[in-house]
């Protein structure tokens, strides 16, 4: 039973204010958003920061909903994913983790690396370029989520792909939203 205490201590030491693990749907997304909003409201967070956190959360959660289950050999597999929010004195961290097939890593990594090379103006141009030419995918995405997270947070996207097994890695993403307003 001690793992309960261990988990609690980890959450405290990592400053995590919310952790959710399981299957992600639009319904869980809405519940998590409501919980996080209440938390930010009750802590009296500035509305500009609150909006940015909310924004990054939605994109991260909807990414998980859209990509954490997939068809393998004609069968639908759902993979448990994890979502976390941390609050430190100078920033919020929105974190997610979900399994990704190894064959899909190169493409995703290239996209994230490209985003991380761009400054504010570059991200804006990339966003406008994509929105003009994109069509909504069969998964319901516009291909703008990561670009938007980078724009709203104003920070580099942190990510890693620790190995799960022969076929899968775990895609870990961390987006930091500074608590001091810009300018």
């Amino acid at each position, binding site marked *: 039973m001690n793992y309960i205490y261990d988990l609690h201590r980890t959450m405290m030491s990592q400053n995590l204010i919310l952790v959710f693990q399981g299957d992600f749907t*639009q319904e869980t997304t*809405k519940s998590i*958003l*409501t919980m996080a909003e209440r938390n930010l409201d009750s802590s009296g967070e500035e*509305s*500009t920061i609150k*909006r*940015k956190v*909310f*924004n990054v959360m*939605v*994109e991260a959660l*909807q990414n998980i*909903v859209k990509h954490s289950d997939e068809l393998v050999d004609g069968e639908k597999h759902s993979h448990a994913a994890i979502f976390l929010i941390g609050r430190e004195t100078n920033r919020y961290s929105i974190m997610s983790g979900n399994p990704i097939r190894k064959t899909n890593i190169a493409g995703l990594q290239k996209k994230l690396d490209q985003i991380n090379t761009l400054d504010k103006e570059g991200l*804006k141009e990339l*966003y*406008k370029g994509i*929105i*003009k030419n*994109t*069509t*909504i995918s069969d998964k*319901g*995405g*516009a291909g*703008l*989520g990561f*670009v*938007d997270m980078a724009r*709203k947070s104003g920070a580099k996207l942190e990510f890693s792909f620790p190995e799960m097994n022969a076929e899968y890695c775990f895609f870990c993403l961390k987006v930091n939203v500074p608590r001091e307003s810009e300018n």
Partner: protein
Amino acid sequence: MYRVKVKINVEQFYTDTIMEILNLEGAEDTPKIILDKKNGIFEISGRSLPEDSAEFYRPVLEWIGSYAKEANGSTEFVFKLEYFNTASSKLILDVLSALEDIQGMKIMWYYHEDDEDMEEAGQEFSELVEIPFEFKTY
């Protein structure tokens, strides 16, 4: 059978004078939408993060398609969004593109006075379509 036939004929008869009002109640993940030609109210407000944005905006795009054929002399189309996700932003651009060819169209883009991101989003949309935008805070 007979009654159905009559109903269709009546609708066809009035089609260029009466347009149905599109009225969608807002929810925690979908915006409130009122499109009312007769009273000149065209407004999308609230939060937009539906699970399936293309499906959600389909009736809006269809309504605008019909309106384009018999639009009022001038139209002020109001966007008063608190938040929208990226999938919705693509559909908002589709809505704006559908409005682009309507004569006398003007976009009223509202944003909360301390919401720079929403202001910037409006400016970007205004650069992507050929419609006059007016910016207002609330």
